């Protein structure tokens, strides 16, 4: 990169992260979708320490996606504060990666799996730069890790639900972020994919990454996560009887 003009997408330089701050700190957060009066999230308080894997659990419509989208900078905050490694949302785009729900991707667009996974490198490239050899190498490593190397050349329109999910996860890994926001990565997946997701979560923890997973699957909670945050109708809910709690998130 030395000697080459780098033009980041956000237009601003990456801030220096506070090494002592938690990975994610949310204070009194309220958020809603534009054009809607209703608040999708009400007065959320949450603190996730560096290196933790946290599940955001709740039924459909409880605000799990809204919470992740707020942290990813996709929704305007109505009230409250979000700090990522001590910085405001958007100060450090490349350190946070957002994995959208499968249904939010245009799978009919004619590109292949490798190309979609490669887009995980774009935040590092910025405007005008083309992917280099090392970017493609990272793509291959991630495809291998998720067991989808063999379908690298396949069009994304020809993937099964489980394969789509693995492709999105591969892209999230390729970004080399420190905070991963995974929106329903366990939806509509097969047993093999479930196994791989567990392995990836373990691997991320070993690397000191922080992972936040929105899910309504309650299996293997103690194995896959260090903590859980329960949501219902946009508000923090109590831990259900017999439910997994793990580390403190306040």
């Amino acid at each position, binding site marked *: 990169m030395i000697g080459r003009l780098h033009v980041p*997408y956000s237009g601003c330089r990456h801030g220096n992260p506070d090494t002592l701050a938690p990975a994610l700190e949310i204070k009194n957060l309220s958020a809603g979708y534009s054009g809607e009066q209703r608040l999708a999230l009400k007065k959320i308080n949450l603190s996730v320490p560096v290196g933790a894997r946290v599940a955001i659990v709740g039924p459909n419509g409880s605000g799990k996606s809204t919470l992740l989208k707020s942290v*990813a*900078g996709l929704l305007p905050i109505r009230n409250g504060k979000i700090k990522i490694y001590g910085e405001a949302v*958007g100060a450090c785009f490349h350190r946070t990666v*957002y994995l959208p729900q499968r249904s939010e991707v245009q799978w*009919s667009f*004619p590109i292949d799996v490798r190309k*979609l996974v490669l887009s995980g490198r*774009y935040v590092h490239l910025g405007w005008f730069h083309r992917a280099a050899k090392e970017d493609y190498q990272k793509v291959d490593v991630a495809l291998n890790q998720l067991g989808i190397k063999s379908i690298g050349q396949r069009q994304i329109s020809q993937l099964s639900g489980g394969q789509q999910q693995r492709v999105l996860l591969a892209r999230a890994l390729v970004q080399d972020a420190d905070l991963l926001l995974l929106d329903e990565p366990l939806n509509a997946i097969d047993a093999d994919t479930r196994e791989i997701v567990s392995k990836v979560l373990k691997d991320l923890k070993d690397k000191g990454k922080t992972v936040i997973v929105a899910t309504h699957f309650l299996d293997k909670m103690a194995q896959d996560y260090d903590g859980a945050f329960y949501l219902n109708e946009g508000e923090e809910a109590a831990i259900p009887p017999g439910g997994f709690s793990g580390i403190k998130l306040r």
Partner: protein
Amino acid sequence: MIDFIFEPLQYSFIQRALFASILVGLACAVLGIYVVLRKMAFIGHALSHSALPGLVIAYLCGYNLFGGAIVATVLTALGIGLIVKNESVYEDTAIGIVPIFMFAFGILLISTTKSYRDLSAMLFGNILGVGISDMIWISLLTLFVIGTLFLFHKEFELFSVDPYYAKAIGINLNLMRYGLLFLLALTVVTGIQAVGTILTNALLIVPVASARLLTNRLRTMMILAAVIAVSSGIVGIYISYYFNVSSGAAIVLMTTIWFVGIWLLKTFKNK
């Protein structure tokens, strides 16, 4: 047979027409990919119709016709964007209203001059009447459209496949949306010279739709669409020359013949 091909080439107006049709075909094919895949066909239709008042005003005041068309289409693109952003009107409703107003306004203006011959060139194009300055305009616009798409290809692609992720890495979605509309407006303006305001959208849609029947790969699709658009332009000009028929109509009919041919081939092959 050889004479059949070379005879028209001795005329400079045919040479200019062929040159223009190649460039217009390229611009429409490349941008058409996004128009088709992002389901913007209706917007292309709207923008091409909206160029009419710009053309007429420029014509009446003696300004450059390209300038008039660019101003009218870009204003329409921005207008549609603004109305939709407001979210109280559905996008397709906005796209339905704005161009009809513009088109009617254009007809009203030209009816004051009683010059329906020039109106017909605006509505149906006149690629055989392309002059040197038109060629320069078409070249610049084509170069700009293709150059911009090339330069921002990865962003336009990601914005189309996964807008949420694009936004999450800091790409401004409104910038991308307006950028694409702006390029579409410019492409429509080049197309109008060839096939007129009414038929321009066909050049954006039909070659890509045909190519899409044959391949799932973006690059191959772009190349095929360009081949279809450019060949239709060239054959259309010859048909127009030999049979003394409207060049715009001949070009657009050629693209649809491609489409129907490929569609039939595919349908029967699958049986």
